[in-house]
């Protein structure tokens, strides 16, 4: 099915099931520990052995020798595979660094061996006996030091790198009445999802099955086949539950490759989990950025010139963090300049983490906007309202499909008692606490991806949906069931959903906040086909057939839906594909984030007291699970603002704090009650679901809202995240 014209009325609009805040259908399994995650699937294949991965102890250089003799002789050891046993493996399409093979080390903790043993303890112990000789080389580990060598880069890997210019930025900036010219930085961050990367691999001849934890089944299958030199049809990937991903499980990683290699060497199924201390350096992370922002405005607050240039680093052949993406679209202004610069670093691979681009980009841009508002003597909300645009500023013929940013801000201001904010910072005190409020805009583009599904109707078993879509905590199981229930006119308990298996039709997968809207649109397409098949079997005109309350009706005839399935059932498969609506319209999601903080006047400790997000993101398919997506993202935004930072050892080239004790993420005591409001919106340009993404919108802008609140509380402007107390202490107002 092709979606190439705005959606008209369709069965989803009934909103009997879709749009309802139903509990997750997988909730009982998750809360009882019976939802199976990758490493614990004892039942899928017998005789599983344990693999333990060894990571490189240098960041750059060569391995001169590996002595695995003691490991091989250790109790219980079945096989040892080292990186010297094979040439460098072919890289997956989505990998920058090689996952295994050959003597060259590209980054710290790159996998160099897997030990397979009868038990976990034996494998771990034996891995510690492997002796490795290294010839280290000097590496480039310091983004600031490499900045002069950075080159222009493009957001799309195919396109030639160039600055994006509209009008004459330099001229307009020079003439602007009010100007801002500041530099901001965000550190490297780690996904730190709770479930480590894990895989069970089993061979049957030349056929390989992995039970793994992966957001994008089709990519994983393709890249595992490519890495191991197998035909894709010989690989099956299964990932029904994913214990968090946030972008860290978008790609094939070493756990899958080494489970497969270990299983082949041991002649047995093997399971491998990356240890927590391996994850930060072995896998991917959100790259640090240094962002230069210049804004010029007229005295009335209208922006006349805006420039945003972001520098980040990555391995050779890697890509930039696209932190200027939102600046192209968010505010009006005739004269514009955005550019990405990329330095080569020998740190672990940088890649997507929740809202890549916008998350760090808004941490800078929305602080700059707050600073500009102050220089203009304007309320930060009014400054943003004045600069709203309903069209792509780069191409005024391209309207936003929906843009309720002003409504988000106005509604939020009222709800949050924004009027109580003191315009001058450092004014509000409560005992030892300095209080402040901050606002920032959340913005994230809505992407749509082709997505397929198979839907089956059985006489007694109701409706069954199969798609390789994943549920990484996003609520996919539930919104897919809601979609099928709505389309087929049955109650939610009549729908069964199976996800994450590469033998099911390929879906959009979970990433870039495209999953919810795209995957349900794929289910919609398959259900349209199934409805036609049902109508056809009953001799009904399919345009007239109504699917309501478990019945199919046309004219004065009505048949129980199950009976229409017949003894053998009916199956339909289709996928939703997209035309050029995304080119003709700019599709984006918007939020107003409001934060109140208290900063200890003596110690500089920041506590978040209140948080509100008002979101405009198309139809909300399930307000309960969507709200969870947003509060979770807001929580990660607080982490980004206040604590998250991978500390780089710039001499030895690795992230030092590579576990959950050293890499701090928010805990329960850090997060207040969070409020989320979804504005009424349907977006027929997006898909027949009229929904848009929401899972990443929630993090976009939160960090800046916290930073702006801290400024409002203390009068200290911190432009370099995270805002730890040492950066506040010196500037705090004198204590009483």
């Amino acid at each position, binding site marked *: 099915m092709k979606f190439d014209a705005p959606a008209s009325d369709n069965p989803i609009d009934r909103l009997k099931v879709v749009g309802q805040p139903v509990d997750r259908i997988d*909730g009982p399994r998750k809360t009882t520990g*019976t*939802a199976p995650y990758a490493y614990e699937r004892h039942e899928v294949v017998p005789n599983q052995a344990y693999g333990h991965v060894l990571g490189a102890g240098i960041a750059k250089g060569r391995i001169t020798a590996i002595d695995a003799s003691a490991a091989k002789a250790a*109790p219980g050891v079945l096989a040892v595979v080292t990186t010297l046993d094979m040439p460098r493996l072919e890289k997956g399409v989505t990998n920058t660094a090689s996952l295994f093979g050959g003597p060259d080390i590209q980054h710290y903790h790159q996998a160099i061996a897997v030990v397979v043993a009868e038990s976990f303890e034996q494998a771990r112990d034996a891995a*510690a006996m492997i002796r490795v000789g290294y010839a280290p080389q000097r590496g480039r580990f310091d983004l600031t030091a490499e900045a002069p060598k950075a080159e222009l880069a493009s957001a799309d890997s195919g396109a030639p790198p160039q600055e994006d210019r509209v009008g004459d930025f330099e001229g307009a900036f020079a003439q602007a009445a009010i100007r801002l010219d500041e530099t901001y930085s965000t550190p490297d961050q780690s996904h730190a*999802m*709770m*479930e480590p990367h894990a895989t069970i691999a089993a061979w049957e001849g030349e056929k390989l099955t992995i039970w793994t934890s992966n957001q994008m089944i089709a990519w994983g299958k393709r890249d595992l086949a490519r890495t191991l030199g197998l035909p894709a049809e010989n690989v099956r990937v299964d990932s029904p539950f994913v214990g968090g991903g946030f972008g860290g499980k978008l790609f094939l990683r070493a756990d899958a490759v080494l489970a497969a290699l270990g299983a082949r060497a041991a002649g047995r199924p093997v399971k491998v989990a990356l240890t*927590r201390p391996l994850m930060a350096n072995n896998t991917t992370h959100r790259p640090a950025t240094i962002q230069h922002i210049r804004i010029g405005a007229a005295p009335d607050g209208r922006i006349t010139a805006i420039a945003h240039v972001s520098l980040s680093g990555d391995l050779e052949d890697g890509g930039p963090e696209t932190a200027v993406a939102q600046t192209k679209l968010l505010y009006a202004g005739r004269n514009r300049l955005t550019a990405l610069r990329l330095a080569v670093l020998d740190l672990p691979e940088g890649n997507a983490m929740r809202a890549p681009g916008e998350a760090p980009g808004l941490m800078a841009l929305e602080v700059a906007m707050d600073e500009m508002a102050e220089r203009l003597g304007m309320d930060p909300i009014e400054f943003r309202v004045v600069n709203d645009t309903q069209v792509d500023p780069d191409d005024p013929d391209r309207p936003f499909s929906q843009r309720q940013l002003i409504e988000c801000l106005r509604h939020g201001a009222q709800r949050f008692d924004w009027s109580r904010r003191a315009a001058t910072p450092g004014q509000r005190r409560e005992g030892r606490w300095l209080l402040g409020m901050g606002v920032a805009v959340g913005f994230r583009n809505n992407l749509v991806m082709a997505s397929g599904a198979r839907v089956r109707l059985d006489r007694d078993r109701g409706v069954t949906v199969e798609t390789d879509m994943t549920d990484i905590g996003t609520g996919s199981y539930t919104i897919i069931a809601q979609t099928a229930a709505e389309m087929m006119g049955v109650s939610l308990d009549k729908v069964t959903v199976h996800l994450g298996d590469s033998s099911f039709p390929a879906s959009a997968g979970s990433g870039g906040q495209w999953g919810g809207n795209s995957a349900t649109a794929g289910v919609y397409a398959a259900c349209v086909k199934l409805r036609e098949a049902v109508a056809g079997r009953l001799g009904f005109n399919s345009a007239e057939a109504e699917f309501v309350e478990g019945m199919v009706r046309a004219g004065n005839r009505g048949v129980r839906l199950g009976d229409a399935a017949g003894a053998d059932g009916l199956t339909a498969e289709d996928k939703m594909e997209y035309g050029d609506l995304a080119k003709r319209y700019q599709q984006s999601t918007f939020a107003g984030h409001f934060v109140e903080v208290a900063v200890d006047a003596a110690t500089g400790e920041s506590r978040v007291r209140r948080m509100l997000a008002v979101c405009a993101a198309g139809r909300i398919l399930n307000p309960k699970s969507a709200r969870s997506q947003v509060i979770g993202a807001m929580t990660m935004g607080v982490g980004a603002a206040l604590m998250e930072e991978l500390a780089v050892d710039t001499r030895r080239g690795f992230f030092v704090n590579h576990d*959950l004790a050293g890499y701090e993420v928010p805990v329960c005591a850090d997060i207040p009650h969070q409020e989320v409001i979804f504005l009424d919106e349907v977006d027929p340009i997006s898909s027949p679901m009229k929904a848009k993404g929401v899972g990443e919108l929630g993090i976009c802008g939160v960090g800046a809202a916290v930073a702006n609140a801290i400024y409002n509380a203390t009068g200290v402007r911190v432009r370099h995240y995270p805002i730890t107390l040492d950066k506040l202490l010196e500037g705090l107002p004198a204590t009483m």
Partner: protein
Amino acid sequence: MTASGHHSISRRALVAGTAAGTAPIHGEAGAQSVSAPHGTPGSPEATTAQISLRVNGQSRNLALDPRTTLLDALREHLRLTGSKKGCDHGQCGACTVIVEGRRIYSCLTLAVMHDGDAVTTIEGIGRPGHLHPMQAAFVSHDGYQCGYCTPGQVCASVAMLDEIRAGVPSHVTADLMAPPQVTAEEIRERMSGNICRCGAYSNIVDAIVEVAGRPG
């Protein structure tokens, strides 16, 4: 390089230390015994310890490598995979179980240290169709997303409310002489040993407040 010799020595030392250090012998399980069985394929030096755990009310006998954590004894040997491994280092709380009435990180303790102990895992708290009120509250408040931290959160919540009832104070308890109250602040403090990277805290607190039966 004599790494393997070195390791076998340290393992025996560890076993000896463990046996001496966990002297309490619980009636039903009998004495902890350490033996070095012969004939285990591929592991001539393997040392195993016989222990008994009372898991969710059932007595379970295990022959374990003494290095096995309580978490791995549950997940890998008893196949009670509801308890999760997020870090294996006592840094996340995903492995929280209740041992002898107290919540602990099961990754941070060896199984041989719990011979005879009563262990309650998430499987013993409730199951689909028969949810514990805390599990039901997590479902209705959407107190989870990916679900990986969830069994640990549920076990911790249940044990945490017992701690408050038993009068155990926390860092945020203002009056150490008065019984601690079930407030949102107390819950947030006491639940901070369980990381939820999905960020469901706001809903988790709501779920616990509901079960505790009084508003924060």
